[in-house]
């Protein structure tokens, strides 16, 4: 993998922005729990200036360039993983563009200025990892669907403008997704507290007879857009190779492959941050009259961290390459990468904290946050166990999870 000059310039600008605007405030913001909407939107609108976002002007270049997307996940997570999650989980807002008229009227102006915040509601309190059989239902009633059920841990949901909800479509007996916009429909949310990723808001949602126009069903969104003559990769602004995977590997699976590869780069960002701090500390801190870096057991820790970081980075890049070329193994490799890098980030953050000794435990040093943020990585977007089952199923063509 070799970045183009444009991609390098993009990364340099992004790094500059993050160092100048996020780095100085990250500790305090993260300590105060989930960002409020204005804070998150402030960063999102700034990032839009750099070419990061999901509105029709920006998305084709951002989403459409696998490397730009992945670089963004890594660089933002190096500074603040929670911000990366808040940003990335907003992607379902792309579907506003082809949604029902009332949703377009309410949300398109916001989307066009980058201010339409999205969320994706898959997980349910009762089902957890078993997402193939949603208990949330969508009942057809005239020109509308009526949604009932609960979702949980949904990023941004507490104050998102639109929420893409996975539900059982009673009219067809199949699983589908429904775009709920909050100007025309309302639902209750309850914010959840958690160990890491403190800065991003996750919430439980209750849908109590929430009505959405039939044209906000995702399959209608696609159908209507295609009938109007749009190409698949105008509707989901993924690169053509990924849209091709949409075709070959089911739409939701291709989306997961993309998101999981992003998560994998996120883990790399956290590891790089932990490693950089630990390395700097190891050469400064002295015990037994020499820098701790001169103790062999500390060097071993550095070796372990570096090997974890580099294998993770290579695996993430491999997953991104397969996505970029639309390779059938993209699903396998993105699950392998997400599973492996998440677990490895836990280990690397743990080693980095150990290098800091007691200082690593203090909230004013970042090791403690890296440790907590890394710990979360193995759960969202499919736990490590689920990634193992996906890899197993891809390798053997025999599923152990249905």
């Amino acid at each position, binding site marked *: 993998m070799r970045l183009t000059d444009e991609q390098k310039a993009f990364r340099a600008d992004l790094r500059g922005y993050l160092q100048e605007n996020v780095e100085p405030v990250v500790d305090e913001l993260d300590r105060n729990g989930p960002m409020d909407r204005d804070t998150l939107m402030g960063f999102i609108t700034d990032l839009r200036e750099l070419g990061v976002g999901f509105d029709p002007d920006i998305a084709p270049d951002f989403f459409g360039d696998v490397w730009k997307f992945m670089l963004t996940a890594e660089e933002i997570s190096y500074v603040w993983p929670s911000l990366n999650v808040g940003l990335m989980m907003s992607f379902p807002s792309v579907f506003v563009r082809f949604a029902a008229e009332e949703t377009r009227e309410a949300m398109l102006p916001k989307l066009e200025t980058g201010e339409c915040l999205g969320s994706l509601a898959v997980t349910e309190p009762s089902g957890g990892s078993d997402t193939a059989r949603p208990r949330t239902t969508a009942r057809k009633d005239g020109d509308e669907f009526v949604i009932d059920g609960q979702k949980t841990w949904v990023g941004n949901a507490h104050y998102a403008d639109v929420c893409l909800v996975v539900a059982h479509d009673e009219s067809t007996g199949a*699983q589908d997704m429904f775009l709920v916009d909050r100007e025309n429909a309302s639902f209750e949310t309850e914010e959840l507290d958690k160990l890491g990723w403190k800065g991003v808001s996750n919430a439980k949602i209750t849908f109590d007879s929430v009505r959405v126009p039939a044209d906000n069903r995702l399959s209608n969104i*696609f159908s209507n857009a295609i*009938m109007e*003559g749009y190409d698949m990769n105008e509707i989901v602004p993924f690169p053509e190779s990924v849209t091709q995977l949409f*075709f070959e590997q089911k739409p939701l699976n291709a989306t997961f492959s993309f998101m999981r590869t992003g998560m994998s780069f996120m883990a790399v960002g956290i590891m790089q941050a932990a490693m950089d701090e630990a390395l700097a500390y190891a050469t400064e801190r002295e015990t037994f009259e020499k820098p701790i870096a001169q103790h062999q057991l500390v060097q071993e820790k550095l070796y372990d961290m570096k090997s974890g970081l580099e294998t993770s980075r290579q695996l993430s890049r491999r997953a991104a390459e397969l996505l970029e070329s639309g390779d059938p193994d993209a699903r396998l490799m993105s699950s392998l990468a997400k599973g492996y890098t998440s677990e490895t980030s836990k280990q690397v953050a743990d080693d980095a904290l150990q290098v800091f000794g007691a200082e690593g435990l203090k909230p004013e040093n970042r090791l403690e946050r890296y440790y907590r943020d890394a710990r979360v990585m193995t759960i969202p977007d499919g736990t490590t166990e689920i990634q193992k089952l996906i890899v197993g199923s891809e390798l053997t063509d025999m599923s152990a999870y249905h």
Partner: protein
Amino acid sequence: MVDDELVQRIEESFETDDEALEEELPGLLADIEGQSDELVREQPEIVSKILNRMSEMDIASFVSENPETADQFQDLLWSGVRVLAEGNEEVQQQINEDITVNFEADNCPMTGHVEVDKSESTVTGGAGVLDDPDIAITGPADVLVGLITGTVDPIQGFMQQQYQMDGPVQKGTRLAPIMNTLSEQAQVDQ
């Protein structure tokens, strides 16, 4: 001209229940063979009715038990599609590249194909498969028939994973509107 007796027999068969219709169909379809195009042109409502009655049946078991009739059924189906495409301006506009597609049922031995031809502006199909098609569609027989008769929306059905599609995404997105318009037309004709 399709003879009146045949038209009358077809109409009478609609009065019967599914089981009786299933018994009658092989003979009926055998008589239609060779005059499907005329039938479709002259009696479009009747053809729509046959196809719709058939799509309510258990297609997979019917095909397994009556493989030859299944081919005749497909001939009728594709005659319907061809004639509809000829007369529909919207479809004519949507045909802007060549597309070849194979259909294969995964629950019974039913195969079919369709060819969209840009220079002729035609949509033609039949039983059996083509060598090296652009797109291969697999799924349960009733879904495949539903795609043609209009009870399954091609894009929604794909998104909801009722069937699988292999081939370049761009060809698929060109095919879908054609199928959609044809099936909307078939529904109107009833």
